[in-house]
């Protein structure tokens, strides 16, 4: 029994445990926060929300971008994706009469991570349009 306790206190047990516990905790955290929700807002350069903007989500691979979904922003400019399965996505907002927004790269810490964008997608009205 004493030998067992000595072994349990040795670095051969403590170090693997010290690695396994955070890894286990991280995996539990992932399972709780991986619904694939991407929440954000589309604003004009003046800070006004824009409704009816099409937001395209693209999944980035090492070499390619492939389209994964489209949603339309609500009246307050908010949009939500619920089907993100990647950890590296790009978002782009477009609407007729507005110039397309910059392609926003969103890096996540794990696949399908729920995320609320800190910065909005910005689109500007075209000057030549009435």
């Amino acid at each position, binding site marked *: 029994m004493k030998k067992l306790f000595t072994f349990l206190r040795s670095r*051969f047990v403590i*170090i693997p445990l010290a690695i396994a516990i955070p890894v286990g905790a991280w995996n539990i955290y992932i399972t709780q926060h991986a619904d694939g929700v991407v929440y954000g807002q589309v604003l004009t350069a003046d800070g006004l929300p824009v409704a009816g903007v099409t937001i395209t989500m693209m999944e980035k*691979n090492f070499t390619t971008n492939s389209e994964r979904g489209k949603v339309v922003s609500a009246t307050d400019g908010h949009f939500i994706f619920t089907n993100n399965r990647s950890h590296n996505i790009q978002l782009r907002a477009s609407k007729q009469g507005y110039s397309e927004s910059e392609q926003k790269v969103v*890096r996540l810490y794990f696949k399908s991570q729920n995320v609320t964008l800190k910065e909005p997608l910005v689109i500007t009205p075209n000057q030549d349009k009435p």
Partner: protein
Amino acid sequence: MSQNMQPPSVKSLLSNGAKKRTSSHALPTWLLHISLLLISFCLLLPFYWVLKTSFTGENIFIYPPSLIPQDPHPFFYIDTWYYIPFARYLFNSVVVSVLAIVANVVFNAMAAYALTKHFKGKSLVITLLLSCLMIPFQTTIVPAYLITGKIGLLNSYLGVALPTFSTIVCIFIYKASFDAIPTSLIEAARIDGLSELQVILKIMIPLSSSAVASNVILSFIWSWNNFLWPLIVIRDPLMQTLPLGLSRFLSYHENTTGALYAFCTMVLVPGIIIFLMAQKEFIRGLTSGATKG
């Protein structure tokens, strides 16, 4: 007068000798520490560079190079984890390494125990084993492949681990440790009714923890870093081990410095952790036979 003089004690003689040696030959401690720090810096710098680049992804040819990482982030590690089946490669490497470790600890102990006995042709066996050390593995690959194919172990974990099941260096590490165990202990165990196998398992191995640790570390490192044999034996991409995965990664993707260095770090870390964990036993195991007369 001579009767009044006390002969100097052995202890005082030893301590005087030690003092003289210290004062006349040894380097000052501060100089020693500075030298060690410089050497450590030179040795650790490449590891630091790999680690730094894995967090920044900066061009390694940039001039002037900067020691301090700028805008570090963990996303290269995340990319590596998800873009290639890293977890699968890791699992494959772990399975192969565990097989190699268990086999090395058991088979090498058996072989070393046999070499501690006296039998006809023992010196010839030892000579043969030592001369086999001089044969590079590359020359035995074709027969090893044919044998592995004949027994149907191609593209399997067992097939990858098989050539590393017993290594001559590890046998001699065990032998050095077993030689230090008194014969009377083995005889006493035999009188108590233990078989040869029980003597190995219950007497020799528990008394040779350093040799066991050395076997574990060496077999782990060799099987973990093994590249050529898995490259030949494995056909299924999902059966590949980490070194093969690294090679595949390099051939698939270009301009991915950060991800590549992250991959390298992820491959290196398990080996480093195991070595640091067991380094005391490892060094003791390697030197246990060194002072034996």
